[in-house]
């Protein structure tokens, strides 16, 4: 009942008002000032391009999405077990973690051309670049998470002679989940960036390729439409992740300070 009250509706609409006004202002200003389309296309032109050929953008969008998700799955799939091994073996952590942190602070975009040279055109460089982008944030988050166990819970499990495997599955893994989700929140946009960069440099498919090709032709409506689709993809993935996090970490809400 209350969710349909006018007040509530207004509360939902107001945040949408600002972008709507900005779009209208851009539209009017670009039309009146006669800025050429190859410099800045009005929003309506971009929308016409996007909805005039939806299968084109959808197809390339799916390609980018699959590349990003495959790379993220590979990066995370290797990082999580490795983090578990590192949490159990301090020597491994001392060896790998400094390297991981070094790579994490390096703008690995610079390595992307190298990957295209090494792995050629197509899926391989895309997936591997995304893997490189996402591997280290997940690794660092995973190690931090597996270490962040409650000392008192650890003492209790010790007092009943729990094995290291029992401590790992019953305490360490669930304790690591909040850190892992935080790492994924960082890794998800990185996965999209990685896929776009890789497609731009060495692919004939995907939104990254669309942006690169449109740029070469100064086809700004296509370029802008691709960016809009990318933004939608990013928002969709982030929303899905937030939903999964709320489901998985239901116990984190309103816990004691």
């Amino acid at each position: 009942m209350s969710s349909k009250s006018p007040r509530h509706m207004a509360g939902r609409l107001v945040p949408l008002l600002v972008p709507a006004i900005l779009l209208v202002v851009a539209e009017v200003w670009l039309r009146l000032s006669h800025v050429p389309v190859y410099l800045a296309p009005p929003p309506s032109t971009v929308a016409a391009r996007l909805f005039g050929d939806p299968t084109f953008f959808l197809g390339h969008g799916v390609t980018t999405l699959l590349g990003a998700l495959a790379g993220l799955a590979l990066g995370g799939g290797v990082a999580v077990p490795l983090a578990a091994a590192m949490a159990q073996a301090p020597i491994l952590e001392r060896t790998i973690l400094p390297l991981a942190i070094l790579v994490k602070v390096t703008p690995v975009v610079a390595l992307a051309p190298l990957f295209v040279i090494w792995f050629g055109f197509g899926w391989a460089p895309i997936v591997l670049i995304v893997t490189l982008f996402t591997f280290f944030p997940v690794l660092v988050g995973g190690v931090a998470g597996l270490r962040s166990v409650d000392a008192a819970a650890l003492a209790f499990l010790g007092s009943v002679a729990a094995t290291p495997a029992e401590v790992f599955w019953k305490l360490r893994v669930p304790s690591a989940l909040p850190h892992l989700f935080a790492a994924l929140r960082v890794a998800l946009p990185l996965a999209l960036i990685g896929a776009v960069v890789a497609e731009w440099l060495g692919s004939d498919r995907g939104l990254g390729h669309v942006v690169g090709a449109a740029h070469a032709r100064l086809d700004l409506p296509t370029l802008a439409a691709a960016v809009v689709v990318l933004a939608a993809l990013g928002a969709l993935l982030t929303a899905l992740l937030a939903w999964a996090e709320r489901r998985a970490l239901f116990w984190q809400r309103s816990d004691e300070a």
Partner: protein
Amino acid sequence: MSRVSVEAAPIAELTRSEPVPAVRARAIRAAYQLAGRPPLAVLDGIDLTVASGELVALLGPSGCGKSTLLRILAGVQLPSDGTVEIDGRPPAEARRAKALGLMLQEHALLPWRTALDNARLGLEVNRSSGSSATLAREALSGVGLTDFADYYPHQLSGGMRQRVALARTLALRPRLLLLDEPFAALDELTREELGWELTRLRTSIEATAVMVTHSVAEAVALADRVVVLSARPARVLAVVPVELPRPRAVDVEGTAEFARHVGEIKRLLRGGVETSQPRGSSDLLRERQRVPS
């Protein structure tokens, strides 16, 4: 094993009359090694014997090493010197036999588990028993939380969480309860209430208990003997038998006997704090081990 007979006896007599005490700790020393600092001695030769069925309170100034001693008894920390026997065997063996029930000030519940699943955590470990759910349910109803089995810790109050932790420990039916200020984080009324409940449940499973506390009143109300420790590095200043009849109830705190015990222990603690270092003072205090009546 009758508790009444051992209740008022000092250590020396206990070790003679009880062949295998529940706890025998001899010359326990412990030190913490922090980087770039000299070793910090926490325990300086602690002897402690607890007879089967007894409730012994460890009382001492904060930071004196009470918790360290308890962790050593539980075998989750190793002493730098000295030996511990639980029912005549090393703590590691007692732990594997689920003979120890450790309970800490932090409830240490797993937030992703319901109250019931938390209560069965200890039972689950290193033994997959089908009866763990039944035992855990019994333990939960023992602490009055039958209706909250499906609740998660974040949905429970502080006192209820500590009750779940108590159920988790009692579900193991341990021979020896090791309690480290188990209710200190709670408000005073809840703390007292849970203290009485603990003694009732402890009696029902016939467990021995060692309880660390910083509350003199709590120690006197619940314990058979109070071991008074000095400031760090901790030594045993005195062992005060609590000569109050059992079963006790809340109104025990209004009696003159109660006040006399509290006064005596506070005097011992004050002496221990003011003259924590020289050995002479503690010898002097040991002479007062038998409480004048």
